[in-house]
């Protein structure tokens, strides 16, 4: 439990962090890589490399390096210049242009500030009082550098860039032990002067050593000097104190403690480089490459961030769209009650795969007198047009059924008013009314597959009426059934029949076997799932509605009537005879019925043939004049109200 709670807390914290940062996981990865690259650029030469190392090349120069700070002491081997037999130079770790040099008599210390430091002014070579031999005791103040010259020692600071910079150079306590009366040379640090010979880059051997390291230099005059003990750094470069660079050279003892590490610790970037461990040394030449990679990383990271934002926006738009579609869909396939008016009802809908979605609809609702109306249909075509047509058909039929029309009459009226001017769009629909008292279901189809019966007599599919929208009379066929206790009726759209299986279309037989496989109490969602499981492709929408009795039978079941309304054209054609034949009416009886029907149609507009198939093969045929549609109470009240 506690672990689970901790996990949950961690999850919440990470979620909150992600939310606070408003960046995706991908962007965070880019940021991490960028930080590492930044550390690489700002890192000292090598992680784990000695802070102080010495190098010696030839016999005449010794280099001490502190991280990237290099201090070199060289003994001028050639006497041609006649000056500065010893020179000490330091270069800052943070900028390649920062150099300082000090020359003491024969020893020269050379210090220069890094480019980008805030040295107020650079020292100008050749200016200042350190003219050799003229004023050996004078203190140089060039470039705001307080450089006392003690005796023959001259100290010079050269800033790389005069205009910029934030760190004054301060070389503290630089001292040389050996002093000579040789006047200080005033040599630009960049060139190290003619009298200074430096073994720059000569040092190759680096040894890890303590912070306080002693180096011995030997003067050209065979005089052994403890020329400089440079334990740390001669230069405190890029100090943010804003103090003017001051270089003090004093003839004193050789051992000095220089706080060179400040040069690194005062720079936050450098510190960053130290804190983030790098596996490999970072050589100078790789830094531009790392910089390029850093920029690339930042660019990619920005792109990832932007694309994530776009994706998030698209996601929001999509969910809004899905909500809209759900609202529209609920106008066509609403939630239906599980039980209503003595019926147990289940309905399900599944849109097609691909572009053919839309067009199926159903509705189950209670009528004013307690009967239950069922509508299920399919509109030809797809897309927005089909959605409109489906909604129009559903609500038109609902209105007619609520007004009290029989299913066949409702379809006939809808067929009249919903004729499509192009005759191309049409709706196949089945409408039914269930009356609980006799347990009787009456339904009519307009071009729609007739329902599957489970546990009762199979309805007759022949002589179907045409769909709504073709401009031809429809709604002539009607079926009346009394449902028994364990009888289920399944209304469905043709998408179920047209599901592709490995052996071809599923078809009515395939669908019926799937329905029977669902057990005694089949439900529409299970049927659609079964169809989906057995199908390789579902090219059309699927809608199904399964109804069965929810209450015990109160009236004797098993009644089965098939009805056909015939007009003059139907009697002249063969449709009436085909209907009677399909019902199993004998030839003699057919002829007698048709004669009777013709006589009735002569007097009124149409006649209704009602075939009683309850006791099949004993079949009774009733023929009577078709009454005008019987109107419900509401319609009668409405008509009375408007005086019709």
């Amino acid at each position: 439990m506690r672990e689970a709670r901790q996990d949950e807390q961690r999850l919440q914290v990470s979620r909150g962090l992600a939310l606070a940062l408003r960046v995706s996981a991908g962007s965070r990865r880019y940021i991490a890589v960028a930080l590492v690259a930044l550390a690489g650029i700002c890192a000292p030469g090598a992680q784990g490399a000695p802070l102080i190392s010495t190098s010696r090349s030839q016999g005449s120069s010794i280099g001490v390096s502190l991280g990237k700070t290099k201090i070199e002491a060289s003994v001028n081997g050639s006497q041609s210049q006649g000056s500065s037999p010893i020179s000490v130079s330091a270069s800052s770790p943070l900028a390649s242009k920062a150099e300082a040099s000090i020359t003491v008599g024969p020893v020269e210390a050379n210090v220069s500030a890094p480019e980008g430091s805030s040295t107020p002014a650079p020292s100008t070579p050749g200016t200042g009082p350190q003219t050799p031999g003229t004023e050996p005791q004078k203190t140089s103040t060039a470039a705001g550098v307080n450089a006392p010259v003690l005796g023959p020692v001259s100290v010079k600071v050269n800033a790389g860039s005069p205009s910029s910079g934030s760190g004054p150079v301060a070389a503290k306590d630089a001292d040389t032990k050996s002093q000579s009366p040789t006047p200080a040379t005033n040599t630009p640090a960049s060139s190290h002067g003619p009298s200074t010979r430096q073994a720059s880059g000569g040092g190759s051997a680096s040894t890890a050593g303590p912070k306080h390291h002693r180096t011995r230099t030997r003067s050209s005059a065979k005089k052994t000097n403890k020329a400089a003990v440079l334990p740390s750094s001669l230069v405190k470069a890029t100090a943010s104190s804003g103090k003017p660079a001051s270089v003090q050279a004093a003839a004193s003892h050789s051992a000095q403690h220089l706080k060179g590490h400040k040069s690194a610790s005062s720079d936050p970037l450098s510190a960053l480089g130290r804190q983030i461990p790098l596996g490999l040394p970072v050589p100078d030449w790789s830094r531009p490459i790392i910089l390029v990679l850093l920029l690339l990383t930042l660019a990619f990271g920005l792109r990832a961030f932007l694309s994530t934002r776009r994706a998030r926006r698209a996601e929001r738009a999509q969910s809004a769209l899905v909500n809209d579609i759900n609202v529209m869909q609920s106008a066509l396939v609403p939630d239906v009650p599980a039980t209503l008016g003595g019926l147990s009802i289940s309905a399900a809908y599944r849109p097609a795969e691909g572009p053919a979605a839309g067009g199926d609809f159903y509705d189950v609702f209670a009528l004013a007198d307690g009967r239950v109306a069922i509508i299920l249909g399919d509109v030809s075509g797809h897309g927005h047009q089909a959605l409109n047509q489906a909604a129009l058909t559903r609500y038109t039929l609902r209105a007619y059924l609520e007004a009290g029309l029989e299913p066949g009459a409702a379809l006939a009226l809808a067929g009249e008013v919903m004729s499509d001017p192009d005759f191309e769009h049409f709706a196949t629909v089945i409408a039914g009314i269930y009356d609980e008292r006799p347990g009787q279901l009456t339904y009519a189809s307009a071009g729609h597959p007739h329902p599957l019966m489970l546990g009762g007599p199979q309805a007759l599919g022949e002589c179907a009426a045409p769909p709504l929208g073709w401009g031809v009379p429809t709604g002539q066929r009607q079926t009346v059934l009394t449902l028994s206790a364990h009888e289920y009726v399944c209304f469905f759209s043709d998408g179920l029949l047209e599901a592709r299986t490995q052996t071809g279309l599923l078809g009515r037989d395939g669908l019926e076997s799937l329905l029977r496989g669902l057990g005694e109490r089949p439900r529409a969602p299970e049927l659609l799932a079964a169809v989906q499981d057995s199908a390789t492709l579902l090219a059309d929408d699927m809608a199904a509605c399964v109804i069965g009795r929810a209450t015990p039978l109160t009236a004797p079941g098993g009644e089965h009537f098939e009805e056909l309304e015939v007009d003059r054209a139907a009697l002249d054609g063969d449709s009436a005879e085909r209907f009677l034949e399909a019902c199993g009416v004998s030839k003699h009886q057919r002829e007698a019925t048709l004669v009777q029907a013709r006589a009735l149609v002569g007097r009124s507009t149409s006649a209704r043939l009602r075939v009683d198939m309850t006791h099949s093969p004993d079949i009774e045929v009733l023929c009577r004049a078709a009454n005008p549609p019987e109107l419900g109470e509401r319609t009668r009240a409405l008509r009375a109200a408007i005086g019709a």
Partner: protein
Amino acid sequence: MRSFYVLDEEVVLNESLGRVTVVRAGGEIDYAASPHLRERLSAAVKPDGPPLIIDLLGATFIDSTAIGVLVATATRMRELGSATAILCADPQILKIFQIVSLEDIVDVCESREQALESLASIV
């Protein structure tokens, strides 16, 4: 598998009817194929044009959209005073035609000879 084709219209000569336009389509005539079928059929529907036979003997599947195209074509032909016949022998498709009562709108025949006879009786 899901192939559809519709051929250019051909004109056949008949003793009693004179010229008869035949449009042949086959394969699976579904939602995606219907626009092509509609295009070819509306080209064949002309004022004072010859009667039309829509030959679907090669069809393996037809959906409600295509049925709508057939009905629209037949209705327009009738309005123009001409006649249409549909050729189809596939039992599954005939079953679908029966469900939607296509015979109420247009003659459905199983052979070309039968279709020509049917057209001759109408025109």
